[in-house]
Structure formats: structure tokens, C-alpha cells
């Protein structure tokens, strides 16, 4: 069936996220919970549908079961379509050899036929590692207006952190003259967000060439972008302003959750004009008990709070019993904190039981001392 699309998205969701330790032991990073009722992957998928992109290939590799089950047919994001929609693209066995995805560029290369099926003019490359709300259609508009071969979304980061990113050095008109991956001495602080729009013809040409280069690590930041620049292709940066956070580490995941609370939160998800969609779980409303104290916290459906919850983000179905305290913590689905137990400065993964009298974490610990409890644990006193 011929089904031309102007722009399709390829979402790289194969990352292990090893710096999230136990959280990604059994699930891929994009399937990690965030903000009470979301998974990280809800953000790029919701961005797509809110930007008018209705065809998304989700490239999976590491521990894909939870992720596959979660995205299923794309229905929660309105991506169950007759023409287009959401497709999970795992590595597969070809005629010549069976190949795991070697790098980000190789993953896309292996799915060139998927792209060609939609004959898109542009391909949007995304990753499933970030929390942000972005209207990609504005970036696409700029890409078309500049006639670029590739547009790289960038964001201003603190100068002292710039060495951790891919840095775009640009001319006054926004065109990129140099791209430095994790430079020791960054020349500026415009960091690549790992979001690229390619004109399809250029993308395919460079992916094919890159595949022939045996010394390449088949990576967009390390190989494809520098090759484009080296050949004098037109690259532009698209400056994004707004909240964007890499949640690849325990402390950054915790911080991003904390960004949702406070008097005047840095990140608000209750925007009815730009919804973040997620899979519905049909839980009852939250119930807050007679002697409960709930302050400065995000509480989700199905929670039953009889104890104290302060400065925390609590996911669906969590029970905090009488006399228990949860403070400065991120508590994921269906955790039970029993009578008199305490959870301080922690990320507690789903289905954990904190037994009566047990204490998790240290009160008022910093973001570098966050206690991490793996899914399904039983914490005894």
C-alpha cells in the first residue's frame, strides 16, 4: 500500500541505561517510570502526536518486553492508525547475517526499508532518554525554510557542564560549522539534544556510506554529523527553549521528578493543550486518610495515604500506612510503605514492600546519596 508521509519519526529506544542500575535491570530505560503516571517514552511519543507526526518506528534492543508491552499498538498516544502508526522495530536476522544494532546510526540503517515504505521527505531521529515537551513541527518548519540537509536541536546548558554534551558551534545565521562530541574545552554551550531532522535522501546516503566504513562506530554524534560537516552539507541548529532533562542517572531522574513539585514547579505536566499521554491503568481515585499529612507532593490514582508524604512524587496504587513517612522520594507503582516505616531521599521501584519499622535512605541526604530500591524488594526492619 502506498502511504506517503511528509515526516516520520524513528525513536531510538534500545538503550540499556546502565547508569540507572537496578531500575533498568529488567527493563529498557525508556520504560522507566516518571512523574507519577508516566514512562520516559511517553514524552517523545506524546511530542510526536502533538506535532502532527503519526508514524513512529520504535527501535528496541535491550530488555524489550516491558517496553513492547507498554507501547503495544500505540493506542494510548493515538498512534494506532490504518496508515502509519507506531511500529516496534527490533533487530532481525537478514540474508547475510543477524545483526544487533551496533550504534544509533546502524540501528536506523537496518530499518531503511521501513523508512522507504512511507517515502517521507524528512526523517526525525529521537531518543527515549529525555523528559521534555517539544513541538517538532516548528523544528521541521525551520528545516524546510533553511533547506538544510540536517537540523540538530540544541539547548543552552551551563558552560561548566558543556563538556558532557555534543556541542554545536554555529555561525550567526544558525548554520553549524563545527560539531564537537564531548569537547574538553567547549567553545560554547549549545548542546545537541540528540534530536535530528534529516532530509531523507541525505540520511540514506550517509547511512549507507557509514555502513561501509569499517572504522566507524556507526553513531550519529560521532560519525554521521561530522561526516555531513566534512562534506560541506548544510547543517543548522534549531534552538529549543524550555524544559529538557536527560534522566540517565539516578540523581538526574530524582531531580527531574523533584522539578514537578514546589511552590512554582519548573516542570508542569497539567497542560491541556499539550498533553503527555500514557497508558491508562483504570485505578480508583486517590484516598487521603483522616490523619494523613500530604504536603508538596504529586499523588496519583489508586494511592491510599494514611501516613505522611512530603516533597515526593508518588505513582499509582501506592499505600502509605498510618505513621509511615515518605519524604524527598520518588515512589513507583504499587509500593507499600507499612506502619511506622520511613522512606527518605530514595527512589523506590514498583511493587516493593517497606516493612513496618524499616527505614530506607537518609533524611536530608543530597542528590548524590539517593537510596535506590529495586522493583519487587522487601525491605525488612
Amino acid at each position: 500500500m502506498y502511504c506517503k508521509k511528509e515526516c516520520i519519526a524513528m525513536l531510538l529506544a534500545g538503550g540499556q541505561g546502565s547508569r540507572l542500575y537496578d531500575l533498568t535491570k529488567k527493563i529498557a530505560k525508556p520504560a522507566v517510570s516518571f512523574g507519577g503516571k508516566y514512562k520516559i517514552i511517553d514524552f517523545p511519543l506524546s511530542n510526536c502526536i502533538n506535532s502532527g507526526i503519526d508514524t513512529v518506528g520504535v527501535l528496541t534492543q535491550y530488555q524489550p518486553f516491558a517496553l513492547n508491552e507498554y507501547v503495544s499498538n500505540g493506542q494510548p498516544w493515538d498512534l494506532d492508525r490504518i496508515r502509519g502508526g507506531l511500529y516496534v522495530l527490533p533487530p532481525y536476522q537478514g540474508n547475510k547475517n543477524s545483526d544487533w544494532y551496533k550504534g544509533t546510526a546502524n540501528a536506523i540503517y537496518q530499518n531503511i526499508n521501513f523508512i522507504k515504505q512511507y517515502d517521507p521527505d524528512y526523517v526525525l531521529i529521537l531518543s527515549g532518554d529525555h523528559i521534555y515537551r517539544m513541538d517538532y513541527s516548528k523544528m521541521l518548519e525551520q528545516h524546510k525554510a533553511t533547506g538544510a540537509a540536517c537540523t540538530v536541536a540544541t539547548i543552552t546548558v551551563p558552560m561548566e557542564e558543556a563538556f558532557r554534551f555534543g556541542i554545536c558551534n554555529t555561525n550567526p545565521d544558525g548554520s553549524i560549522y563545527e560539531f564537537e562530541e564531548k569537547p574538553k574545552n567547549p567553545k560554547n554551550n549549545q548542546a545537541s539534544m540528540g534530536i535530528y531532522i534529516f532530509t531523507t535522501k541525505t540520511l540514506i546516503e550517509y547511512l549507507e556510506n557509514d555502513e561501509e566504513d569499517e572504522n566507524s562506530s556507526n553513531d550519529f554524534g560521532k560519525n554521521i554529523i561530522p561526516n555531513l560537516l566534512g562534506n560541506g552539507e548544510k547543517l543548522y541548529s534549531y534552538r529549543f527553549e524550555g524544559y529538557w532533562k536527560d534522566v540517565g542517572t539516578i540523581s538526574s531522574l530524582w531531580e527531574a521528578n523533584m522539578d514537578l513539585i514546589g511552590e512554582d514547579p519548573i516542570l508542569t505536566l497539567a497542560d491541556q493543550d499539550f498533553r503527555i499521554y500514557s497508558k491508562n491503568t483504570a485505578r480508583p481515585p486517590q484516598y487521603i486518610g483522616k490523619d494523613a499529612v500530604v504536603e508538596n507532593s504529586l499523588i496519583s490514582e489508586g494511592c491510599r495515604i494514611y501516613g505522611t508524604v512530603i516533597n515526593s512524587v508518588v505513582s499509582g496504587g501506592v499505600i502509605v500506612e498510618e505513621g509511615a513517612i515518605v519524604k524527598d522520594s520518588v515512589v513507583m507503582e504499587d509500593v507499600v510503605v507499612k506502619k511506622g516505616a520511613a522512606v527518605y531521599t530514595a527512589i523506590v521501584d514498583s511493587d516493593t514492600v517497606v516493612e513496618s519499622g524499616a527505614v530506607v535512605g537518609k533524611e536530608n541526604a543530597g542528590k548524590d546519596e539517593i537510596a535506590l530500591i529495586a522493583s519487587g524488594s522487601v525491605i525488612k526492619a
Partner: protein
Amino acid sequence: MASSAAGIIFSSLNNNTLSRLTSDRTVAAIPFACRYRLVDFALSNMVNANISNIYIVANYKYRSLLEHLGSGKDWDLARRDGGITFVSPFQASNTADQAMFSTHMEALKSMKEYIDEIKEDYVVLTDSDTVLTIDVNDIIRSHESTGADVTIVTSSVAPDYTAKNPRIMISSVAGKVTQIAMSASFDERHPELALGIYVMKTEYLRTLIEEAEAYNLNSFTMFLLKNCKSSNYMTYRYTGFVASVSSFLDYYKYSMELVNNEKSRDSLLGKKETPIYTRVHNSAPTKHYPGAKVENSMIADECSIEGTVINSIIFRDVTVEKGAVVKNCVLFHGTHVCKNAKLNCIVADKDVLVSEGVALSGNDNMPFYIQKGRKI
């Protein structure tokens, strides 16, 4: 596993005793228990019993009901076969009011063609003003084992029971219905209240409609009364929480019972294996701000709580600003309570704005109702 039953849900036929809550919506679409509409309970009970061929009958202000149901997807009822079929009165071509209906029996007569096509062996009929979480398969099993013509779900009522409208009251011996009566209050001769849930063979329903047509019977209740002695009607006793919403005061009292009585709350909403489904709004989790105080309350998603909320039911997208106190209230979605406002025993319909410093109070037996969209 396909179910052996089809479902028919009636919305608000003949029910005008809920006047305020239904001035803009049919009974099935009345918001209840924080994030649901009444119809969600009847629908979820059926869906949880694997029933996937469901007719929803409405003749009155059903716009909001249609909007709520959408394609039926949120109840897993967007199906190739069956799913939700909406039955409303329609004007037949030449003969005026041929398909208009205002009673259950008239509705059943008008949907005869649908009923003729039902492939399932059994039908489950239910009203939407009775709110409960019940195992429909268990009723069907009981129906099969007793070999009844009709199984009527009942619950015992307290001696202080009164309803706005006469309800169907039943007396039974060893489960067999011996008498049916209409009563608006407790009657010791008929101590069971019919909950508006009936199970029968589809074939029996077809005969029932034919008989009603032959005798020009326009009331389902009259049919039951007339045939009680000659037929085999059995009861199925339900002992969990039931909200039989027949008046505005009932509505308020049942809402408060859900907040105040954990057993009732668990009976209706606490069964993990039978979740209650509702329309998905993709709302963000609720934010409790620094200084907020919430006690003994049920709160839906996407609320902003900066003030105090006590003994209340708070629907989706409600804002309670700093210094505001909400006590013993039911606030429908979109209610905005500004700074230092004080509300006690209030039922606020959708999108009400309570301005800064306003104080309003009803009492337990006379809660104050604020109309949809009002600014106070």
C-alpha cells in the same frame, strides 16, 4: 472467552427526581465517586464479566453520555462484533412518534429488531441509577442453576429506607419471589429492594415483549407484577455497597458514605480484579502544594490543592487555592475555589468558580447545589 450474555443498560427513563443533577444530562452521565459517571459501573460490571455486546438505551439529554462513551474504546468495547450499540428514540418515516419511548417496556418494544438479533443465550438488563460493583457471571450462574424465568437482583433495605419514587420491593421464600409491590418506603412484608438488575434468557425477553405488545402493557414493572404468581422469578441477594440514587439528597449521602466508610469504598472501588473503567482523560497526577491540608477525602487527577480539603470528593481538574477550606463537599470537575473561600456541604457542578473570600454552607440534610458554570 465469549460471554453467554448480552447487556442492556437503561439510562434515566422516567427519572426526573434528580432534577438538579440531570438538568443538563441523563442519569447515566451523572458524575459520581470522583472520576466516574454512573454508567461506568453498569458497563464495567458487564465488561468484567466478559460481556461485549451492550445496548445503551437513553431518551433524554444524552449528549454528555455520548461524549463520555465515545467509541467505547475506554471500556474495551470498540469491537468488530457487538461493542456498544446506542439506542435512542427516533422518528419513524411517516407515522409520528412510532419509536418514541418513555418507559423500559416501550424502549424494549422499540428495540425489538436488535433483540431479535442477539446471539447470546442470556440478557442482563440494568438501570444506571443503581451503583454497585457486582459479579455478573455469578448472577448468571445462579440463574442457570435455579432455572428461573427471571432472576432479580435485590438487597435488603434498612427500616428507615425512603425513596423519592416508589421502587420495586420484593418478598421471597428461599429465593423464590412470592410478591412484588411498589413502595417508596420500608415495608416489612417486602423487605428486599429490587436493584434494577434482571437476568433472563434472551428467548424469554422476546416472549415478554410479544406479550407486552399483545396486552398493550407499557411497563416492565407491571409485567413482573402481573406474572409474578404464574412465573418462576428468583432473587439474587447482593450484600455489598449499593448506591441507589433516587434523589439529590441520596446522591449527596451516598457520596459522603464513600468518603466516610472504608468498607463501602472498598466494596465499590477496591476490587483489583474488577476495575471500574471510565473515559480516559490523560490528566496529570494531582499536586498537593506546600501548606496544603487534606483529610479523609477522595481526589481525582490533575487537581491543584493549596488550601484545606476535609471529608470531600474532588473530581478532576479542581483547584483549591491558598486559605480556601472545602469541607463535606462534592466538587465536580473544573471547579475553581479561590483564595480564602469557605465551602461546607456543597455540591458544585462542572466548571463552577467560587470567588475569593466567598463563604457558602449547606447542611447534611440539605446540601447546597451550585449549577454548572456558575460564578459565585
